[in-house]
């Protein structure tokens, strides 16, 4: 067993994994916004899920109490995370599992690759897992000559299409049925050329395609939705049965889990098993949930490894405002209600964690300067906070991270940014009444910029691309007040 102490928090290392985009959000968003098909696909999908989720949440009379309970359990967990993780390790070990501690993506990839190599298998099957996406495990396995096969339908669509996931729950949400049919016809060996774009037909094609893989692959890799410290029980929540296949059929199971997924007690599951499906897929309960504790003789994998992944999480924990992003149970409700996500899709965020939660998770995992545009990728409308089943105050974290970015920039550059100069000047002006009133009078000069703002410098000129400027009135309110 390898063991790394959780002390000395570090951010997720560069050069590995998928937490950083190649370009700032506004640049990537511009390209997505130009894709009319993408906008239609996203609008349809998020509209559907919002309606479904609202209906089943409406059935639960104590939904607000459940949300509060979820928040409280997570806050308690974060307050004593090291203790709970050690308790989990003890319980898993006692039940016949092996626990590994990975400080970052590099270490986690090495641990998993070594474990697979030791089995002699050159192929692994995978259950959809955000943690393994985060660390770029598939690339690490491929580099070691091991073929990773994604078994979740959406992940399969993404993998076959050599695409990137764009949603936490439904990674292929940006694809409609016609596009999925084309990908299957092009990339799925032996697929029926008469394949239609009926979702049931497409699902059946995936069933046939993966059946052999399930029956013949001896190693599986999963994530975990929850890990119960008290009992050592792991839980995977899914729909298709590919999770059950991976958790049941192979000889060896390797579960990679972010350290924040631990919950204190067995009874705590009652809160999250009620919150997650309704907030996530809009179902009263998802079709399948598997729970296992270590190894059960003659039933399921006889070799079980749990890899506890830090990769920037301990660093997040040190931030009193930002740490609540670790409460996330990856339901993706915030994506589905976000007006920004609905229009730009997930790829614009650059990280495997898109949407509002991604905009607060990714910059904290990597250090804010590596994802400096993400905290600004929100109008702060607050829909995400309302939708979050564990009440993460995403808008407040976004505002907090904007300040972190400003501070980091200030510390790294000798000269202040133009924005910082403007902001300081504006604050000074607004704190001196004569200056403020003079500025008000001056603002009338923008009348000469015209309604289309042709006289304005960037970035203010960006405003006038699609909107007319308000025309300053002949008299400010305070001038009127004095005269009346």
């Amino acid at each position, binding site marked *: 067993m390898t063991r790394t102490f959780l002390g000395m928090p570090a951010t997720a290392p560069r050069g590995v994994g998928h937490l950083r985009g190649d370009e700032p959000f506004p640049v990537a968003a511009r390209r997505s916004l130009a894709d009319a098909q993408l906008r239609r696909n996203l609008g349809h999908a998020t509209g559907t899920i919002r309606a479904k989720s609202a209906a089943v949440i409406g059935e639960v009379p104590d939904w607000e109490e459940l949300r509060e309970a979820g928040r409280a359990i997570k806050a308690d967990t974060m307050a004593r995370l090291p203790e709970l993780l050690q308790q989990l390790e003890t319980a898993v070990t006692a039940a016949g599992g092996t626990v590994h501690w990975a400080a970052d993506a590099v270490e986690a990839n090495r641990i998993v690759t070594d474990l697979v190599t030791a089995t002699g298998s050159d192929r692994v099957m995978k259950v959809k897992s955000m943690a393994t996406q985060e660390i770029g495990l598939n690339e690490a396995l491929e580099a070691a000559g091991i073929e990773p096969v994604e078994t*979740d339908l959406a992940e399969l669509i993404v993998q076959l299409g050599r695409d990137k996931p764009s949603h936490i729950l439904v990674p292929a949400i940006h694809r409609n049925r016609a596009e999925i049919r084309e990908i299957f016809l092009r990339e799925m060996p032996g697929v029926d050329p008469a394949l239609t774009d009926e979702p049931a037909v497409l699902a059946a094609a995936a069933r046939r395609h993966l059946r052999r893989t399930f029956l013949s692959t001896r190693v599986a890799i999963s994530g975990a939705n929850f890990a119960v410290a008290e009992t050592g029980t792991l839980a995977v929540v899914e729909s298709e049965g590919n999770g*059950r296949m991976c958790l049941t059929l192979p000889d060896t199971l390797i579960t990679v889990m972010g350290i924040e997924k631990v919950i204190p007690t067995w009874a705590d599951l*009652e809160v999250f098993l009620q919150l997650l499906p309704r907030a996530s897929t809009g179902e009263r309960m998802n*079709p399948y949930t598997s729970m296992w504790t*270590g190894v059960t003789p003659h039933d399921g994998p006889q070799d079980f490894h749990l890899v506890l992944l830090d990769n920037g999480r301990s660093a997040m924990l040190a931030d009193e405002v930002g740490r609540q992003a670790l409460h996330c149970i990856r339901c993706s409700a915030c994506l589905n209600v976000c007006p920004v996500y609905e229009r730009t899709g997930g790829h614009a965020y650059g990280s495997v964690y898109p949407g509002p939660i991604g905009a607060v998770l990714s910059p904290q995992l990597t250090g804010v300067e590596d994802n400096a545009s993400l905290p600004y990728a929100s109008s702060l409308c607050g829909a995400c906070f309302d939708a979050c089943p564990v009440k993460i105050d995403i808008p407040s974290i976004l505002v907090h991270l904007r300040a972190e970015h400003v501070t980091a920039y200030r510390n790294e550059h000798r000269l202040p940014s133009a924005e910082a100069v403007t902001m300081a000047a504006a604050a000074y002006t607004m704190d001196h009444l004569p200056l403020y009133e003079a500025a008000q009078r001056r603002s009338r000069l923008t009348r000469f910029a015209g309604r289309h703002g042709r006289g304005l410098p960037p970035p203010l000129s960006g405003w006038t691309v699609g909107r007319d400027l308000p025309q300053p009135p002949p008299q400010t309110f305070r001038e009127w007040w004095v005269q009346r």
Partner: protein
Amino acid sequence: MHLDVLIHRLTDYGAAVHRCADDEVAHVVDAILGGRRVVIPSGLPRHWLPDTVEALADDNLPTERIATADGVVTAAAVAVAETGTVILDAAADQGRRIITLLPDVHICVLRVDQIAAGVPDALARLDPRRPLTWISGPSATSDIELNRVEGVHGPRNLHLVIVPRGSHHSLDPVGDPHSLPQA
């Protein structure tokens, strides 16, 4: 009342629900799987099986044999009315997890007194040391345009047979699941 809620939820998911006396279960199984090959866990009450099925008792059957079966018949540990869920805990009348996974038809026999009102109640009845499978309707996916479509990798047909209180009780001894007697 829990029973009505459970039936409503299960039907909503596309599962078929049958209600009968304990000694009529075999008729229901016959109607669904008569003439077919059926895997059964070692502790399944034999009177639930009609003569018309080819029974394949799971005494550590190899995966390939289980995969050739048309269906599987098991008991259940607990059901959750509120969410339309049946939970298997690998007791002798439910068997190893694999047997309810590969066959395309799963017939699950449930006693009325095994129905819990909600998730908290169900968790309290379960032993976390056992491997647990929570099943809410047939295998499904929402990955294509977020519409729920039944039938991906798990059994595409789920039948719940609900029998009265006091019917067959599992003979599985309560205790450490890691030392369960295996068939």
